[in-house]
């Protein structure tokens, strides 16, 4: 067993400090240590995207990163994107446009989509299919997920224009 390491993280705006084995997977840190259970475990081999979070501005599958690699990082999970009473436009769109069924993939999907829309605020359907290809959903057939992201992009762009 390796020596424990002093880790500092900022998760959803909250500073966290603890001792952990460096090889602890970040998804376990979030789910078991910090009780942040929005990011889910679907495969633990970086294929499904259920564990997607944002680390220092990039989409990362939290099952493929050791907590030591995340030391000092800013992490946003679905819980930090919007709460029940202040939904992010993507959250509203997934909810209203049926971008979910069992909902297990949803936190990872939405978290990934927030980055996608930052990278490309006007994605075509093709861009969305390419940009979301790392997130699997077994229920929806993806149609409503693509529609939800398109609708949220339109909504966010309209809001931006109105603000300008």
């Amino acid at each position: 067993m390796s020596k424990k390491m002093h880790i500092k993280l900022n998760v959803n705006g909250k500073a966290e400090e603890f001792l952990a084995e460096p090889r602890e997977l970040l998804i376990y840190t979030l789910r078991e240590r910090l009780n942040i259970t929005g990011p889910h475990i679907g495969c633990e081999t970086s294929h499904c995207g259920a564990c997607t979070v944002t680390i220092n501005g990039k989409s990362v599958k939290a099952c493929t990163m050791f907590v030591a690699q995340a030391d000092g990082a800013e992490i946003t999970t679905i819980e930090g994107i919007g709460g029940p009473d202040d939904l992010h436009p993507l959250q509203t769109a997934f909810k209203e446009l049926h971008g979910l069924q069992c909902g297990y993939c949803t936190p990872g999907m939405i978290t990934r989509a927030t980055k996608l829309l930052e990278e490309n605020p006007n994605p075509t359907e093709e861009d969305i299919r390419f940009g979301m290809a790392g997130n699997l959903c077994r229920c929806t057939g993806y149609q409503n997920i693509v529609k939800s992201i398109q609708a949220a992009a339109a909504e966010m762009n309209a809001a931006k224009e109105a603000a300008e």
Partner: protein
Amino acid sequence: MSVPKPLPHDAARMHVTGAARYVDDIPAPADTLHLAFGLSTIAAGRITDMDLSKVRAAPGVVAVLTADDLPFDNDVSPSVHDEPLLSDGAVHYLGQAMFLVIARSHLAARRAARHGDVSYAEETPILTVDDALAAGSHFEDGPRIYEKGDADAAIAAAPHRIEGVIEIGGQEHFYLEGQAALALPQEDSEMVVHSSTQHPSEIQHKVADALGVPMHAVRVECRRMGGGFGGKESQGNALAVACAVAARATGRPCRMRYDRDDDMVITGKRHDFRITYEAGFDGDGRLAGVSFVQYARCGWARDLSTPVADRAMLHADNAYLLPAARIESHRLRTNTQSATAFRGFGGPQGMVGIERVIDEVAHTLGLDPAEVRRRNYYAACSERGLSAPRPSGPPEDISGQKKPQTTPYGQVVDDFILHEMTEALSRSADYDARRRAAAQWNARGGVIRKGLAMTPVKFGISFTLTHLNQAGALVHVYRDGSVRINHGGTEMGQGLYQKVAQVAATRFGLDIEAVKITATDTAKVPNTSATAASSGSDLNGMAVKAACDTIRARMAQHLADTHGCAAEGVEFSGGRVQLPDGRSMGFVEVVESAYLARISLSSTGYYATPDISWDRIKGEGRPFYYFAYGVAATEVALDTLSGEYRILRTDIVHDAGASLNPAIDIGQIEGGYVQGAGWLTSEELVWDGRGALRTHAPSTYKIPAVSDAPDVFNVTLWDGANREATIYRSKAVGEPPLMLGISALMAVSDAVASCGEVYPALDAPATPERVLMAIGRVRGDGV
């Protein structure tokens, strides 16, 4: 107020914020222990020695259990008591649980489980259909046979004949949430189990037997699953029982989840099938007789294979009136995972068989397969009884009376609507013009070929085990007018909770927000059936309606007594209660007044599907209350050099009766289609010669990604009501759409066929490798 509304999923707000809890998200006490199975590394034989000292010594391990440590029942089978939780000495497949590790963390348990030192006396495993046939290894006494007329004679007398064989692969469920359970020991030998299961009552039953306690001492709860698809009908038993047994042994809460590899290696999948066929037909492609032999590879234990194989037989006709038919079914026992329920429950495999026959008939005659399909459809039905004749309609007897058209198992088909639906889809999908365009494109002889196919679905709704067609519910109305409902159905993403809540809201004339639906709980509604066979909303919707109506009737009688009116005329709508004389009062006001008058505002409800009966040995009766219909057209573009292809466009018209929630139903159709197309195209299960599943992770087992879904995807609900008196005349929609995916396989076959003269005889899944081999056959390359 009407029920149908495209309301979001009941927990959508929680799902999008990450607040919706699955079993593994439920906070557990700090002293909770974690479990993992030690798995067999051979497919068949006996354990000669099991040295677990290294496992016990591994970091974090608290205890290790073997079959000898189990004080009561060592069984997790849903059917015939043939599935030990932990091996009793015999090894039946590679991946079978040999021992159980109880440790302080999930990872500690998993790591320790790898350190078992088990010696075996190995036997030659029976792995394939051919192995099983050679060894005579099967379940049940012999093949089941359903017959209508003399198929052999009809085939022999027909002007044209074909015969062939198709191999149809299995399918991993790949529910995104793997199997999981949590057991919390209580006072007085009680056990509470949270399980990701479609069948809480069965978990309760198996846990009670394993603990040696009555069922009343076990409470099982399931708020939601992260997908089920049939894979959580029986496959969750092992985890729940393991957790309960370990919790009893240690006195501490125990939790278990399979990591994805274990999940794929341990649990059962869709049955793979070999189907051989012979068919006789006339020059127009009309079938005179068809004979099928279906070989289902069932794996090592019986599980649900009997009803699955039965349902494959019951769908060997799909949408076609077979004048004579013979269906023979073999249930083969092999040293592989015990194949289990998967959306469609054998129906899809049976349907692929007849769709293959029709496709080959059309190819033989040079006809459009869609036209041959229509020529063989059951006759159209009017509102009640048969309507307008078609040229080859059902025969008339001497009195000039039409004999009802029947399936090969004797059920009358009197609700057939596929003629109209196919016509509508043909038009909306522009089928004829696109078929011509594809033919022209292919005539240029390029590398990229196009294929277009339109296939129907007729799917029987009801459990074929008649007694399972029952459901219970519990409804409470509180003094503030809010309503809490509970029923035996489980939520796996299909939107059942929301649909049933809509029913309750409508019965009481309330907004949906006034109704809260709560976790499925064996302490609230007992003796439930699995949420399966697409029957969730049919059964539970009716049971909840019955409970609501009991309370409504009491409230109405109370008003009748206090206001001197007739109870029958009292109506509930818009949050108010109307008396026959036009007076009205708020719902809450009536509730409070009934409460003060000491009238019960709580009721159970119960429903049993009427009019069904079935003799599965003879193959006679009416197993299904009604049929659900759908039709899909899929177009693909195929690269004939690599065998790769993509779906360009899919059009679907599907029958959900009078839909309770059109948005949820369309979601089911889209998801079902993509899952069905995945099954028949990219999802390939491969076992090696030792019986090891080689495709046990998403890196090697490919479910559709967003980039694989059709480029253009048009789904329409057929506008019509169920003729049977189902809940608000809706139809079940969980399973039927999966089989719309058969159109993808047939479209690929169509594209391949354009490469030459020979029939492609494409097996499923149509992986690029198989497609290339089929192209070789079609071109006569002899590959």
